[in-house]
């Protein structure tokens, strides 16, 4: 079964907060490469990990993850 894509804003949030991949990975207890694969959309996290990522950035989970592509910065929507 083909995996449905899950879009995320981890890279944007991480850059905004000035957090390195290794720091985020350490806070989440995952390998730093996993953060990279998440950012590239090559791995969809479990619900537990998704909630912990949202908790780390102190935003609702739907701010970080979406089933539809996020609008680009500056676009009308």
């Amino acid at each position, binding site marked *: 079964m083909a995996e449905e894509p899950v879009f995320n804003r981890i890279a944007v949030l991480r850059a905004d907060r000035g957090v*390195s*991949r290794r720091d985020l990975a350490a806070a989440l207890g995952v390998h730093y*490469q*996993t953060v990279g*694969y998440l*950012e590239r959309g090559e791995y969809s*996290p479990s619900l537990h990990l998704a909630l912990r990522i949202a908790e780390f950035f102190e935003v609702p989970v739907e701010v970080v993850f979406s089933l539809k592509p996020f609008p680009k910065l500056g676009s009308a929507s």
Partner: protein
Amino acid sequence: MSLRERLDGHIARAMEEEHLVALHRTRRRRRLLVVAGAASVLLLWADAAVSWAIAPSDTAVRVNLVLLVVMAAIYIPVVTALNSATRGLASLPESRLDERQAAERFRAHTYANRVMRLVLGALAVFVVVATWDEGEKSQIPGAAVFLGVFALLWTHFLLPLLVAGWRLPDPPPDDDQDDDRDDDQDGEQSDGQAGAA
């Protein structure tokens, strides 16, 4: 902390060290490593076949030794590089892996299991065909049986790592590399702007 946990921690740290990076930097190189790893296992099967054909004899012993030395010479660097590339995905205990790594290891084991079924099926067919003419009187040298079982075990042991190495996408660049790349790009852009101006 128990001895086992300390040993696992030591192995986990070793897997994070960059060994033979030049050998596994690109997907093409990793796949060549996998082919080389498969070739090293094939040498074990060749070893068993040689024993079946000409054992017991001095020639069989010499050929077996040469094949084992060549196998080890290929196997050690290939497995070291693949373990480094996969960060111990197929070697570390599951408690040392995160959910992505554990899921990827599960997939690697699933594919390896399928391949192993084919290998076992092919082996069964081969043994039946090779002993068909002699029937109940057929004899297989003990050395061939031993080396065959050894090759089978080694194949079973190595396949998950080979599958994981074959499937592994290019890893995301490290933050430091990102910074280096950004610096390079900034330099290129400023050069380009200077050129345009």
